[in-house]
């Protein structure tokens, strides 16, 4: 059938749905739903890791293979450094820029290396906002409890306390750099309510929060003249032979040459993993989200946490083809947009946590109440025109210009027509274990942002990622700079790589996979 025919039921049932309130699931119902439908519980997608710090633990097959992969660096690489730094930051997204700026402000010699351009990251795409508890009805404690609830009580309490308590001061830092958060008429910061949060606490820059923050941070990195190496991917870390981190090997992606960086401290801010397309899911992630930091930290001996859990954002576009996997902002649901199945029914409280909403969408589709597209994908409707009905014509244009533009390119007017969505691989909940100073189990190796784990438990709340980046980027930058100030450069060796290769041989791993993979292999080979 023509898509417009199928959309009719959404228009027809709109008025009836408007008066309906759907209760949130009880804790027991949530558990049952998630265990039955969430991709984290598909046993055959998982296997145990054969060796290394997380030996015997389960993770998705794609990640296990990556972690067990071989280093691209030859054992006899000449380790004469091409560059030296107090702090080497790997990654040019939100966490990397925040870390670099704070370390630089402490007087450290900072080198920022990134495999694409400065700012090419998931941060730049963040549309929902940044959670900071500022209203009188709200508090850092409420923020803490909301996050814990969303994370299924599995969050690291110390990390979480640090994040929610430092939220307001990092918001002040961003304002001081010129980030233009939306305001109320009285000049205070406007707050919106996000999925899984009991109080409105999302600070936003319309639906361009990440873009605005990234533009400003990028500009500031350039203004401070921080040494920058773009299209230079970190492919291996260096150790002093006793397990401490002493630098990294970068690869210039244009001439493929290795470049050795001697650094007193290294901050990994390499982001997430979406482009591994775990379980075949499309992803909302940027081109370079291939878990590089996880692979490098793991070879170095850093323990990973909660790497069996991933976030599937409820609303990835399913139609048109060009937008598959692209994110449809959660803001639509925050503002009252309904999720509607093929029968015209709502089936979940749209503001429940991402794992619950995603699981319920998968349930609808698996039980035959989805809509199939010509490429064989299935989805449910997100009733975008409802926002225009509720809040007046022009609402979408005003509050969601990015989304309006995204669809308009393909001739779709979201003010008139609902859009088809299905969960998309969005976020790596776990990552490298860190302490409150953002340091991993390997001395002088810091990890900030999505690459780190523990903070978000088994499900991250909307708006907590941008906050995580700013708070732990800052902590990593400050601690690394202070540390570098009081120490000498260490020896540069590849001892850990040697040991890792021996382990791999011992466990019969010879997949031939080299990690980090840097980019997904999309180019068609014939």
């Amino acid at each position, binding site marked *: 059938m023509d898509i417009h025919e199928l959309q009719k039921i959404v228009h027809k049932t709109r008025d009836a749905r408007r008066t309906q309130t759907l209760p949130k699931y009880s804790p027991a119902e949530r558990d049952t739903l998630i265990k039955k439908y969430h991709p984290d519980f598909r046993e055959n997608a998982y296997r145990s890791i054969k060796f290394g710090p997380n030996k015997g633990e389960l993770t998705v097959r794609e990640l296990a293979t990556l972690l067990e992969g071989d280093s691209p660096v030859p054992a006899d690489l000449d380790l004469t450094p091409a560059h030296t730094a107090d702090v080497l930051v790997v990654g040019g997204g939100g966490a990397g820029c925040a870390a670099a700026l704070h370390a630089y402000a402490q007087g450290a010699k900072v080198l920022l290396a990134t495999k694409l351009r400065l700012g090419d990251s998931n941060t730049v795409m963040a549309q929902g906002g940044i959670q900071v508890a500022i209203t009188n009805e709200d508090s850092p404690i409420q923020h803490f409890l909301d996050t814990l609830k969303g994370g299924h009580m599995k969050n690291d309490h110390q990390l979480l306390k640090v994040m929610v308590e430092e939220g307001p001061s990092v918001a002040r830092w961003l*304002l001081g750099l010129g980030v233009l958060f939306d305001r109320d008429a009285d000049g205070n910061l406007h707050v919106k309510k996000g999925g899984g949060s009991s109080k409105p606490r999302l600070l936003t820059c319309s639906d361009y929060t990440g873009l605005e923050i990234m533009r400003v941070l990028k500009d500031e990195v350039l203004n401070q003249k921080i040494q920058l190496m773009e299209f230079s991917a970190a492919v291996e870390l260096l150790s002093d032979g006793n397990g401490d981190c002493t630098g990294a090997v970068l690869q210039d992606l244009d001439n493929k040459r290795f470049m050795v960086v001697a650094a007193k401290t290294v901050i990994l801010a390499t982001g997430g993993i979406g482009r591994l397309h775990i379980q075949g899911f499309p992803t909302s992630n940027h081109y370079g989200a291939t878990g590089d930091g996880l692979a490098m930290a793991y070879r170095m001996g850093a323990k990973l946490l909660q790497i069996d859990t991933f976030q599937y954002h409820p609303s990835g576009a399913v139609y048109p083809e060009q937008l598959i996997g692209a994110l449809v902002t959660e803001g639509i649901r925050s503002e009252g947009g309904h999720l509607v199945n093929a029968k015209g029914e709502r089936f979940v409280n749209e503001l429940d946590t991402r794992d619950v909403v995603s699981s319920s969408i998968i349930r609808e589709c698996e039980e035959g109440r989805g809509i199939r597209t010509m490429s064989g994908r*299935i989805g449910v409707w997100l009733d975008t025109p409802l926002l225009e009905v509720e809040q007046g014509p022009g609402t979408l244009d005003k509050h969601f210009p990015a989304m309006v533009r995204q669809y308009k390119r393909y001739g779709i007017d979201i003010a008139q027509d609902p859009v088809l969505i299905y969960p998309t691989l969005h976020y790596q909940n776990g990552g490298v274990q860190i302490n409150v100073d953002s340091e991993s189990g390997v001395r002088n190796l810091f990890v900030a942002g999505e690459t780190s784990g523990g903070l978000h438990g088994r499900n991250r709340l909307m708006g907590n990622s941008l906050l995580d980046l700013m708070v732990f980027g800052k902590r990593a930058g400050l601690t690394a700079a202070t540390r570098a100030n009081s120490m000498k450069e260490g020896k540069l060796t590849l001892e850990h790589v040697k040991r890792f290769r021996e382990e791999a041989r011992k466990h019969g791993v010879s997949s031939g996979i080299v990690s980090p993979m840097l980019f997904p292999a999309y180019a068609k080979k014939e």
Partner: protein
Amino acid sequence: MPEIDKENVIDQEEVLRPKMVSVEITGKTYQVPEGITMIKALWYTGQEVIHGAGCLGGFCGACATYYRTKDDPKVKTCLACQTAVQEGMSFSMVPPFPARKATYQMAELKDPKQDLFTLYPEAPLCRNCNACTEACPQTIDVREGVWRAVFGDFKAVSEMFMDCVMCGLCVPVCIADIAPNLVALYASRAQGVHFTEKPQRLFHRIKEIEEGRYDGEWDRVLHMNEQQLKEACAELK
């Protein structure tokens, strides 16, 4: 694959069987499926893309591209990750243009509206050709923005350029050598740092935290056992 009522299947003829179309990529002709994005067309033809691919979601501005549709002399601009290919289209990705970015310590500027003319002395030389506006894939009225910046209306600039992905397509077309996106970024940041109200509620909360307003409650919450924490979470509304 789960059962779906066959009534609920989108099966419009034009999308059931993707048609192959002829497109010219950087001067060479290829057959690719109609409707895929330009970036996907590059991959489809076996080309690795490193310079020119970033977020793939239309936000990072890495994939600035010139293109032309069949028989139309007009060369247009777009983001390659957001633009579908069609029969007879020609496109080339745009290498980064060596624009000059001024550097500044934003917080230390005394008179940012005047400082614009020192940092970007070319800004007031706009000759109104409107090429920048026409080049903008985000449909920002770039020319108007440059003038607003020059006349000191930084607030308007910041609002107009909130959609700017910094692709830089407005720069090479400027006959006055202005980099409008960089001028706008400067004006927007200055607006935020120098001309925006200090949000009292935020500062109040920071003070509360610093003064230990929540210490008692933290002590209570952090000493809860798992069951008590669960109950506290269950009470959240």
